[in-house]
């Protein structure tokens, strides 16, 4: 600028130009931010519009749901937001009701697909031995307790495998719902009993456990006399009603203010139920939705879009991602603990640790197709020549375990990096304090460092799960079938996954699939992702505030 020597004497025109340039620049920045936000909104709106079809609904429909759902929830939210006690109870209540509902649905779907009897055999044997070890360790402290617990689980699973055939032939005639009682009700009753014992007294704890068992049995009896399959109801009563009742009663007894915060989920559920029943009674034309119970509970149909469902794909995704979490999370957290807590910073071991850090950040940038190629050659070459594994492994279509291992390798860097960050943020004073009390390195990690780092580690795990559940390309490459009609039968069954069905049907020649079924399936995937991300953000915020 010519006026550089003394900018204050710049003429009006120059000042104007600079002001205008600044304004223009700022609006350019706002515009680019808007591009990002609007693209996101557009994606959700167009896909949501096709999945729910709100244009078919009459104005009366919107009025009805405004009255039963939107207005009560708004009033309630305004009230709760002002009251800190109520707001914390509200969060707890939502978490209990919807957490237990989703958890029970997931457990039922997976156990049902895998076969309840098998799950029961492995669960009983897998928990029997650690329970014995645990009972022994309560009376006698020993160096061997720590290593013995995981080892006893392993021994239990191996025993279950060995005794599988005779045990199975004995219990095969037992009805499914009794197996669900063993797999779901008994652990839930025990867990709630322990919780109540801890919060109140042993007597109340026993009463709670017995009440849960009795309620489940009564439900089963009622369902049988009505001629309905009791399995779902047993799971729902013990998995949802039990926890919700315990948490609600506990809150009512313990808290003296803001108890109305418990009502949140019920206002939501009640509003939907009231809206739906009034809609039917008054004969109001509602949504033309593709995202219906049919979609969630039916099997896929290639020719009749209104019959098509994604139940097998959902169960497949849950099973694949669950197996992946079981395999990859311990390894990821273990690697992070080694790199942060053990690895020295000097010497050849220090250089090795640096090399591992660089390697991990490079792995995070490897395209997902390449992981697919790794999985493919792993399961064709390595497992193909291992005779002790089921022979189908390595041949097409790919199995749940193959998909889980492939995705596990893919998310390993994400888990390691986020766990490392969480461990790094634990203040050193805590470690020094623990060492000062005479604790060893492992004791310090287990009792001091890990509990502090859990929220951060959990956040990373949830984000990794969100990434894995939407991952498609590696699964296509290892040969998972893109269209599936039945859920996997277990970890060694053929894999299925929701994103693959979206991939297979995105260009379907029948328009009802393209803009209906696939849109609804995409909404399911998007909602899962949003719920996971917001849970991760909530955990992170809470953690940062503390």
């Amino acid at each position, binding site marked *: 600028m010519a006026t550089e020597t003394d900018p204050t004497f710049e003429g009006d025109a120059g000042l104007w130009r600079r002001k205008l340039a600044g304004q223009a620049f700022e609006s350019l920045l706002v515009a680019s931010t808007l591009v990002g936000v609007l693209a996101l909104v557009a994606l959700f709106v167009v896909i949501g519009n096709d999945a729910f079809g709100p244009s078919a609904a009459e104005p009366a429909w919107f009025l009805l749901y405004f009255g039963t759902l939107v207005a009560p929830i708004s009033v309630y939210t305004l009230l709760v937001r002002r009251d800190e006690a109520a707001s914390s109870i509200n969060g707890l209540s939502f978490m209990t009701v919807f957490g237990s509902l989703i958890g029970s649905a997931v457990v039922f779907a997976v156990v049902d697909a895998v076969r309840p009897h098998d799950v029961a055999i492995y669960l009983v044997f897998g928990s029997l031995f650690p329970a014995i070890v645990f009972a022994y360790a309560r009376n006698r402290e020993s160096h061997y307790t720590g290593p013995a617990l995981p080892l006893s689980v392993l021994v239990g699973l191996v025993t279950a495998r060995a005794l599988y055939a005779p045990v199975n032939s004995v219990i095969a005639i037992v009805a499914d719902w009794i197996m669900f009682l063993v797999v779901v009700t008994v652990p839930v009753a025990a867990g709630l009993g322990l919780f109540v014992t801890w919060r109140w007294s042993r007597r109340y704890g026993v009463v709670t456990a017995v009440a849960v068992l009795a309620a489940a049995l009564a439900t089963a009896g009622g369902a049988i006399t009505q001629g309905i399959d009791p399995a779902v109801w047993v799971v729902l009563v013990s998995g949802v009603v039990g926890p919700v009742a315990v948490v609600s009663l506990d809150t009512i007894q313990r808290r003296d203010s803001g108890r109305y915060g418990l009502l949140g989920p019920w206002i939501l559920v009640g509003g939907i139920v009231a809206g739906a029943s009034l809609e039917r009674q008054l004969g109001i034309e509602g949504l033309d939705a593709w995202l219906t119970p049919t979609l969630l509970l039916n099997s896929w149909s290639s020719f009749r879009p209104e019959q098509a469902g994604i139940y097998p794909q959902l169960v497949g995704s849950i099973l694949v991602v669950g197996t992946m979490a079981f395999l990859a999370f311990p390894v990821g957290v273990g690697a992070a603990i080694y790199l942060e807590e053990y690895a020295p910073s000097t010497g050849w071991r220090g250089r090795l640790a640096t090399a591992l850090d660089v390697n991990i950040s490079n792995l995070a940038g490897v395209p997902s197709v390449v992981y697919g190629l790794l999985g493919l050659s792993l399961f064709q070459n390595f497992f193909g020549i291992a005779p002790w594994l089921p022979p189908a492994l390595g041949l097409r279509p790919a199995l749940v375990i193959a998909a889980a291992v492939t995705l596990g390798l893919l998310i390993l860097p994400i888990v390691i990096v986020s766990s490392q960050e969480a461990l790094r943020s634990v203040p050193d004073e805590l470690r020094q304090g623990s060492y000062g009390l005479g604790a060893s390195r492992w004791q310090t990690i287990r009792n001091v460092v890990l509990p502090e780092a859990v929220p951060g580690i959990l956040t990373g795990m949830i984000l990794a799960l969100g990434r894995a559940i939407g991952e498609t390309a590696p699964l296509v490459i290892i040969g998972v079938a893109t269209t599936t009609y039945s859920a996997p039968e277990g970890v060694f069954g053929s894999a299925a996954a929701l994103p693959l069905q979206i*991939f297979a049907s995105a260009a379907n020649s029948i328009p009802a699939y393209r803009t209906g079924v696939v849109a609804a399936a995409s909404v399911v995937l998007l909602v899962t992702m949003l719920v996971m991300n917001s849970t991760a953000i909530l955990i992170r915020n809470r953690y940062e505030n503390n």
Partner: protein
Amino acid sequence: MSDRQTTTLQRDGVAVTKERLYRLLLAGCAATTLAVTSGIIIALLGRTVAFFGEVSVIAYLTGTEWSPVINGTFGVLPLISGTLVITAVSAAIALPVGLGIAIYLSEYAAPKVRSVLKPTLEILAAIPTVVYGYFALVYVTPFLDGVLPLDLGTFNALSAGIVVGLVIIPMVSSISEDAISSVPDSLRNAAYGLGSTKFDVSTKVVVPAATSGIVSSYVLALSRAIGETMIVVIAAGLSPKMPFFPDVLRNLTSSVQTITSGIVQVAGAENASGVLLDAMFALGITLFVLTLTMNILAEAVRRRYREEYN
């Protein structure tokens, strides 16, 4: 322990062994990551060597036709051309928009606005890419076809590239923002003291000072765009093409195939075996080397800027 008093000074043998065991187990977990890298390299290299036994390296690198199933020709150039087209379109969207967002968030936005916008924009990167591909094919392409005076095919590079651009926006914006906000405030204050406006400070001081971080974010984002798979497979079609030269727009309106979609197509082919499967691994190593080089480059650039101010 009843004998706790005596063990405080000297841990007994079992405790020491236990500590060693845990350390070994954890080190094993860390070593897994090294195994993954070597696994990738061994898997890719082994099959690639087999592939180059059948097809010459020169034919692969300079061939202008990719038709592995029908003609048995394995020229990688059309796939590289397709990858470049998609990457160029996505770069045209994501690089300016991402930088704009980064400057806005770190220099202009109020803390409250920032705390809402940041996680919102992160969602762009968290949406499953298969949903993006579906979005591009079923919604973006018909929309662009109606708005633009172009004759867009059902499968085209333009909408796929634009949507890939959306995916990589958060990568550009978050890494650039880190770089921009790590510029020391003393530089900003000095510029303000000299009579600069906020516009001057942003464009003439802060952004130049953060250049290496911004460049690093650009390189990483482009590497991500090159490796992007499902959007391209679903929305850009599967027809490998050499670039149309004088008629540049045709590159955008027609269907293309990238390296990644080439891999997926071979994987999905019926009875893929022998040289066809090996070709998939040759493409894999091409992609791996390309993205790894870019990631290392980005890291090297970023490390330089760290040294400047700390």
